[in-house]
C-alpha cells in the first residue's frame, strides 16, 4: 500500500484517485437519496388504503418473518425453483457483504490508494472471497435456469398468462440479465486484480477459485488489466446502485418489501373473513332500538370524514395491507397455478388481481419511473377502456366475471411464498358489487332471498327444517367401553 506522502509526490494519480472518491461519494448519495425518494412514494401509495390495525403480536410476527421471509419456508413446497431461488437469495445476501467492502474502498480506498479493505480479516477474508466466487458462479447457473424456464417455447405454465405479457415479461428478463451482468463484473474485477498481482509478483489477499481459472483469458498487460479491474469494480457498484433504483418500478422490489409484508400477515385462521364493523352497528341497531351506534371516526383535525362505501371499488377502498401485498408480488404465479377456477379455464387469476391492484394504485397516485401498466383486451373479456383516469380497479381492471369465479378455497393464499392474500381483495370487491350495486349474479340473489325468507339458501319451507329427524331408527348395540 503506497503511503499518502508517496501519493502526493505524483499529483496526477493523486487527482485521479481523489476524483474517483468524490464521484463515488456523489454517486452513493444520489443513488440512496433517489431510492429513498422512490420508496416514500410507494409508502404513500400503500397508505391510501383503508386503515387496519395490525399492531401487536410481535413475537408471532417476528417468528413468521424469520420463517416465511428470511427462511423462505413456503418456497420449499416446490423443490426445483426453491433451490434455484435459494442460490440467488443466498448469493444476494453474501455477495452484498462484499458491497460493504466496495463502499469502503470507494470512499476511502480510492483516495488513500488502497483497496480490498476487508482483507485484514485474513483467513475469514479468504473464505468470504471463495464463497462469493462459488456463489457468483452458481447464481449465473441459476439465472440461466430461470431464464430457460421462462423463455423456452413451452414455459413453466405459471409463468404464462394474460397478465404476464409486455412489461411484466420484460421486467422478469431484465432482472435476470442484470444479475448476470453484476456477476460478470465481479469476476472481471477479481480476475483482472488477480492477474495484475501475479504479473507484479505480489500476493492478492483472498482466495479466488473461479477467477484463478479465468486469468488465462485476460491480457498480460498491466495497464489493460488495471483498466479491466476498474471497469469491473465500477460496473459492479454502479450496476448495484442502478438496480437499486430500478427496484421500485419492478416486481423485484419484493427483495425488500417481502419482510414488512410477511410481518403484517393476517394471523387469524385463513377461513376467517374480515368483519365489517359499520354493518355490525347497523344490524345491532336494527335488532335492538336502544343500541347506541358509536360516532363515526373523524379526521385528525376533528372534521367529518367522507362516508366510505361498503367493499372495494378502487384501491383506496382496500385495506392498506392489500396494497402492501400488491407491492410484494413477484408475479411468480403459484397462486394462479393452484386456483381451481383458473385450472379449469375460468378467467380468474389471483395474480392478475394483485398485479392490477399495483397498476391501479400507481396509475391513480404516484407512478414509478418506468410505468407500463397491463392493458387487457378481448383475451381477458375486457371492454376497451377509454377513460383511463376514471377506470377504477373494479371493472376498469378486474371484471366481475373474474370475481364471481372464486370458490374462496384459499389455495392462492396458502401457496403464496410471501403471504399475499388475493382472496381478501376478491371478497372486498364482491362486497361492493353486492352491497353498493346489487350486481350479484341472479342465482345468488335468489340464494340471498331464500336465506332471508326461509333461513336456508335453498327454497325449502322453514317448517320442514326438522323433518330429517322423522322415523329415525338405530340398530341397538351396547356402547363400547374403553378399550382394555
Amino acid at each position, binding site marked *: 500500500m503506497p503511503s499518502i506522502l508517496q501519493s502526493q509526490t505524483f499529483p496526477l494519480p493523486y487527482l485521479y484517485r481523489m476524483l474517483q472518491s468524490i464521484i463515488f461519494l456523489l454517486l452513493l448519495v444520489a443513488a440512496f437519496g433517489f431510492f429513498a425518494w422512490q420508496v416514500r412514494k410507494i409508502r404513500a401509495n400503500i397508505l391510501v388504503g383503508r386503515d387496519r390495525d395490525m399492531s401487536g403480536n410481535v413475537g408471532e410476527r417476528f417468528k413468521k418473518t424469520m420463517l416465511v421471509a428470511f427462511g423462505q419456508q413456503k418456497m420449499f413446497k416446490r423443490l426445483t425453483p426453491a433451490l434455484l431461488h435459494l442460490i440467488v437469495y443466498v448469493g444476494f445476501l453474501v455477495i452484498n457483504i462484499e458491497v460493504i467492502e466496495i463502499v469502503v474502498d470507494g470512499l476511502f480506498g480510492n483516495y488513500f490508494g488502497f483497496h480490498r479493505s476487508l482483507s485484514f480479516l485474513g483467513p475469514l477474508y479468504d473464505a468470504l472471497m471463495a464463497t462469493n466466487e462459488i456463489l457468483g458462479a452458481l447464481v449465473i447457473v441459476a439465472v440461466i435456469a430461470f431464464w430457460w424456464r421462462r423463455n423456452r417455447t413451452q414455459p413453466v405454465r405459471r409463468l404464462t398468462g394474460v397478465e404476464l405479457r409486455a412489461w411484466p415479461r420484460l421486467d422478469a428478463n431484465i432482472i435476470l440479465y442484470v444479475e448476470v451482468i453484476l456477476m460478470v463484473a465481479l469476476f472481471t474485477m477479481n480476475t483482472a486484480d488477480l492477474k495484475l498481482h501475479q504479473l507484479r509478483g505480489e500476493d492478492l489477499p483472498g482466495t479466488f477459485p473461479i477467477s484463478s481459472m479465468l486469468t488465462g483469458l485476460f491480457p498480460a498487460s498491466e495497464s489493460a488489466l488495471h483498466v479491466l479491474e476498474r471497469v469491473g469494480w465500477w460496473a459492479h457498484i454502479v450496476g448495484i446502485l442502478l438496480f437499486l433504483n430500478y427496484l421500485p418500478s419492478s416486481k423485484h422490489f419484493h427483495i425488500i418489501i417481502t419482510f414488512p409484508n410477511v410481518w403484517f400477515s393476517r394471523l387469524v*385462521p*385463513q377461513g376467517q373473513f374480515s368483519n365489517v364493523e359499520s354493518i355490525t352497528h347497523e344490524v345491532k341497531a336494527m335488532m335492538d332500538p336502544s343500541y347506541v351506534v358509536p360516532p363515526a371516526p373523524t379526521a385528525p383535525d376533528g372534521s367529518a370524514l367522507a362516508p366510505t362505501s361498503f367493499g372495494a371499488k378502487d384501491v383506496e377502498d382496500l385495506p392498506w395491507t392489500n396494497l402492501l401485498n400488491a407491492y410484494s408480488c413477484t408475479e411468480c404465479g403459484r397462486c394462479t*397455478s393452484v386456483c381451481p377456477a383458473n385450472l*379449469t379455464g375460468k378467467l380468474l387469476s389471483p395474480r392478475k388481481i394483485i398485479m392490477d391492484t399495483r397498476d391501479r394504485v400507481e396509475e391513480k397516485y404516484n407512478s414509478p419511473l418506468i410505468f407500463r401498466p397491463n392493458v387487457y383486451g378481448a383475451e381477458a373479456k375486457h371492454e376497451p377502456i377509454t377513460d383511463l383516469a376514471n377506470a377504477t380497479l373494479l371493472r376498469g381492471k378486474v371484471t366481475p366475471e373474474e370475481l364471481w369465479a372464486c370458490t374462496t378455497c*384459499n389455495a392462492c393464499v396458502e401457496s403464496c411464498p410471501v403471504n399475499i392474500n388475493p382472496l381478501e381483495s376478491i371478497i372486498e370487491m364482491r362486497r361492493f358489487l353486492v352491497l353498493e350495486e346489487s350486481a350479484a349474479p341472479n342465482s*345468488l340473489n335468489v*340464494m340471498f332471498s331464500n336465506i332471508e325468507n326461509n333461513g336456508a*339458501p335453498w327454497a325449502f319451507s322453514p317448517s320442514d327444517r326438522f323433518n330429517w329427524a322423522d322415523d329415525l331408527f*338405530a340398530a341397538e348395540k*351396547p356402547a363400547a367401553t374403553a378399550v382394555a
Partner: protein
Amino acid sequence: MSPTTPAAGEKRQINVPVMADLAARNESPEILFWVGCAGAFDDRYKRVTRAFVRILEHVGTKYAVLGLEESCTGDPAKRAGNEFLFQMQAMQNITTMNGYGIKKIVTACPHCFNTIKNEYPALGGDYEVIHHSTYLQQLINEGKVGVSGGESFKGRRITFHDSCYLGRANNIYEAPRDVLAALDADLVEMKRSRANGLCCGAGGAQMWKDAEPGKKEINIERTEEALATLSGQAAALANLGGVETETSAPGPHDLQGSIIAVSCPFCLTMMSDGVKNKEQESRVQVFDLAELVASAEGINA
C-alpha cells in the same frame, strides 16, 4: 338412553332432543349438534345427519339440536359479499344460542364450523366449536366407538377429499384421516391433498350458481383425480395442474367398491355429481366420515 338395554341388533326409534324442550326442563346438553341447512334439507346429506345422530346416541352423549330454531349461519351470503345478510343471520343465531347458554357446538359442515368458530366471536357469539371429524376422532381414540361390528371396510380403497373450509381454512388435516385409518381400509392419497387439496368447486357460494365460462367444471377435474387415484392410473395423474408436492401414484386397483370420503355437505354433492358424470356410480361411492363410522359400527337401521 333407555333404562333397559335392548338386545343387540334390535331397532330403536330415536327422538332427537330439541334444545327448547331441554331448556323447558331446565336441562342443558353437553353439546349442541349444529345440523346446518344441507344437513336439514338435502335429501342425500340428511343421511349423514342421521348417521351422526346414531353415533351420538350410541355413545350416549347428552346432545340437543336447535330444530326449527336453527337458521343459516350466513356463510354463503358472506362469501358472496352480502355482509349485511350474513350479520343478520349471525346475530339471530347468536341470540338464540346465547339465550340457551350454549357452550359447545359440534357440526358436520365445515362451512358452519368455520363461520361459527371464526366469525361469530366478533359479533358476540363465543363457543367451543368442533367439527365432527375431530369429534369422531376423539370418540375413536377414547374407545367409545370401536369402528367394528358392522360393515367391514378392510381392503377397500378409500381416498379422502379435503374440504377447503376444514383444511386450509382451519388447518384440520389429520382428524379425518385418523378416523378413516380406524376403518382398516386401503387409504390412498390424491396428489393434491391436505394444504394442496383441490376445491370441489362449491365453496364461496358457487353451490348456488352456475360456474363462469371455462373449459371444465371444477368437480369434474377433482373427480377425475379421485378416480385415477383410486384405480391407480399413474398416467392420468402425470400432468395434473397445481401440484405442489409430488407424491407417488398408488398401484393399479379395481375401482369396484372404492370410496371417496368427504367431510363436507357441498363436497359430497359435488363429488357425487362428478362420479355420476363419469358414470362410475355403480363402482365408486361417495360417503361422509359419519356414514362410514356408523356403518362400520353397525348401528344403521
